[in-house]
């Protein structure tokens, strides 16, 4: 049994790895169209990304909030719900983290301020998630639409705050004051911008994995997602599971906001990371909602983003090449699920025929 699990892991690795490579080949095949030599571009990208600890650190910086945002999608997905609004919950986390950090940094010790900011960001995100689930359970509102629209509500609240109470003291740009150095998340790799945010994210992924695998809480969420009728007849109230799953989801996205503000930007900006929610969904789907898989997929996305940025800086290729690459790679990974499935069905048929032949 253990052995079959190992070989399954290897299979997953081979299939997904193959899909990645194929996806990269196809996306590089577009480069001649913009007048670039794909081989030189590849050399440049890989060389610059991995020869420089600063760039490698950047991968971790990019990956940290991605991990959390895709965990946010994955944790509701396990209850067969769609939280499309991680972007909004992320913004709420950013707002809470900024407000608490700016408000407390001069009164409270830095450690306490950071802790409060983290908790506040998580609570803020969770509150948004909880409201979405509440609308679903009380009024049977479609959580897909409500969560999607909630992003805009939070976005405009953020825009409003950035023009009023949270705006920088100079009142020049639509952004907040810089957080004082003391409440920045500590760096953990010298010579890079990587903060301990990535460690928090990885820990969160492991925690979610553990909750889903080992606790009654996670078990009930998954039963609800897979068969709501059976859940109800087993004493599990689906509505309660919806509320819990959405609160956890919002909490994770909020935490991502905290890590982005206190760990990377050190201030709140208008239009900050405006795609992180949708990347999160893509990564979660690519990782098949497996929290551990999410870590690796996020790192890959981070690497592609860093590599793509280098490419657009160093060559004449347009900046949108990054999105093109991400999109194609994602498509190929999704294709690989389909082909793997077909391949496995064919294999079982062949095995069966061979077995009957022996008889």
């Amino acid at each position: 049994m253990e052995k079959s699990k190992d070989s399954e892991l290897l299979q997953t690795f081979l299939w997904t790895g193959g899909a990645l490579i194929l996806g990269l080949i196809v996306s590089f095949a577009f480069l001649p169209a913009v007048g670039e030599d794909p081989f030189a571009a590849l050399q440049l990208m890989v060389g610059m990304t991995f020869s420089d600890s600063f760039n490698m650190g950047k991968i971790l910086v990019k990956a940290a909030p991605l991990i959390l945002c895709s965990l946010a999608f994955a944790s509701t997905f396990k209850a067969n719900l769609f939280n499309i609004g991680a972007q909004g919950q992320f913004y709420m986390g950013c707002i809470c983290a900024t407000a608490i950090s700016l408000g407390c940094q001069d009164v409270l010790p830095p450690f306490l301020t950071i802790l409060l900011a983290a908790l506040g960001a998580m609570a803020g995100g969770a509150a948004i998630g909880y409201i979405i689930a509440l609308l679903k359970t009380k009024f049977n509102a479609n959580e897909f639409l409500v969560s999607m629209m909630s992003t805009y509500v939070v976005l405009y609240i953020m825009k409003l705050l950035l023009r009023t109470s949270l705006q920088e003291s100079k009142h020049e740009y639509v952004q907040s004051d810089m957080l004082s150095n003391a409440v920045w998340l500590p760096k953990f790799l010298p010579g890079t911008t990587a903060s301990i945010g990535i460690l928090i994210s990885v820990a969160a992924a492991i925690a979610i994995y553990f909750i889903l695998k080992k606790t009654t809480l996670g078990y009930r969420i998954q039963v609800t997602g897979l068969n709501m009728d059976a859940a109800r007849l087993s004493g599990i109230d689906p509505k309660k599971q919806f509320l819990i799953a959405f609160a956890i989801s919002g909490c994770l996205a909020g935490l991502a906001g905290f890590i982005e503000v206190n760990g990377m930007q050190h201030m709140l900006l208008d239009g900050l990371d405006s795609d992180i929610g949708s990347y999160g969904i893509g990564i979660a789907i690519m990782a098949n909602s497996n929290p551990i898989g999410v870590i690796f997929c996020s790192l890959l996305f981070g690497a592609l983003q860093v590599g793509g940025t280098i490419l657009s800086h160093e060559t004449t290729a347009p900046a949108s090449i990054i999105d093109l690459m991400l999109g194609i790679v994602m498509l190929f990974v999704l294709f690989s699920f389909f082909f793997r499935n077909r391949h496995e069905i064919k294999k079982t048929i062949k095995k069966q025929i061979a077995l009957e032949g022996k008889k």
Partner: protein
Amino acid sequence: MGKPVVEMRHIYKRFAKTLANDDVSLTVNPGEVVALLGENGAGKSTIMKILYGLYHKTSGEILIDGKERDIQTPRDAMDLGICMVQQHFTLIPAQTVTENIILGTYKGRIDYDKEQHEVEELSKKYGFEVPAGAYVKDLPVGIQQKVEILKALHRHARILIMDEPTAVLIPQEIDVLMHFIRDFAAEGNSVIFITHKMKEVMDAADRIIIMRNGAVSGCVNKKDVTATQLARLMIGHDLEVLKKPESNFESQKKRVEVDHVSIELKDGRKLLNDLNFSIHAGEILGIAGVSGNGQEELCKALYGALHITQGSVKLDGEDITHKSVKEHIALGIGYCPADRYRYGMVSDMSLTQNMMLKSSYLGRWDKHGFINWSDVSNYTEDVIKKYNVKAPDTSVTIGSLSGGNQQKLVVGREVDMGTNVVIFNQPTRGLDLGAITNVQKVVLQERAAGKSVLLISTELSELFDLSDRIAVMYQGSFVGIFKPEDLNVEKIGLLMAGVSLNEAEGGSDGKE
């Protein structure tokens, strides 16, 4: 006999993972009623669907009237005079009987009056009381089946295939159907009916073809065979005869007391109407009735899954009327739902995870919410051994097991959860004979262990074999509660059809 009208030679049919038909050869003569007998999954429906053009054979040949034919679609089959009445009807509820019958046979303008007249004639000819102008959605299932048969007759079928035709009928309707089958065959037509019920075979068939594991395991004339021999051919060994030990349940305490329970919907319709009964410790109370007369609602109400609007339910004197499902589980009530796939299991989860299903709040396998999966897994292995479940290991999904093995696991779990009361809703539906005996034995074991058992079944023989008392349910209320020895099949059939007790007794007395 003359030349066979249907001859199937060496038919093989392979689905993705299984060989559904393994070298099946059979013949059907004109004017003959052939019963295709076998357990679920024996390949009966598959071979007939090949004949009807719904499935395509992997290899082999089909001869109709001695000529080889390639039947690609049901239309090809119909052109050859072959029609099939499916187990699940293929009628359009929103259309009238006539419209359903002429569906697909018409081109151009439809002369409804003429067609309706024709349908009425046809219906009269075979003694079917089918209102040709009524909408199918308003008709009971028994009549709907007749519509299906009329559809075949209207297409001038001479080879009629029927897949489990009696599954939805009450005993009196079965008699009518059997009568029709004989009449129809007497006109020189052929009938093939698929069934796993021995009694029907002995009633109506001329010849019996028995299938097992996708292959023909025997072909006998009815007059040369006994029911026991048939059972052996069907399952490959002798069937165990269940013996219900005597029980003096009446001297035991009343464990479940249901007092004037009703469930009324907001629009005034009553799902359950003034139910009054009790179940003693060590008693099996059987519920007879045509499906959809409130049995499902009764189970759910007793399990806390449906809100009771009037009356009360007591367990050992404690009022549990408005307790939640969670509390019912904690009180030791087990429930095997009729639709286990929807209500009793999570098909994409492993066997171990499914055994955990009812216990997620009990603290039985977890400490402060952290589950000890290896304990659950060991327990699952015990259940697998105890109930003889065929499964490779505990980590496969329950959806990958056969229906019988799924049911054994669900029954094993619920019997364990229900330390006081176990509710079985059609526990043997869709199972093969071996598994049926297995489950029935468990039901009797639970009774012997002093539990109160509520057994809902549409198989009358099962109710008579197992129950200490039988209640007949019709439109949400009990027609009465009887001792099995005071009932016979005919009387129970009338009661199930809504005939009042006096009339039913008058009817049966008159005949005796």
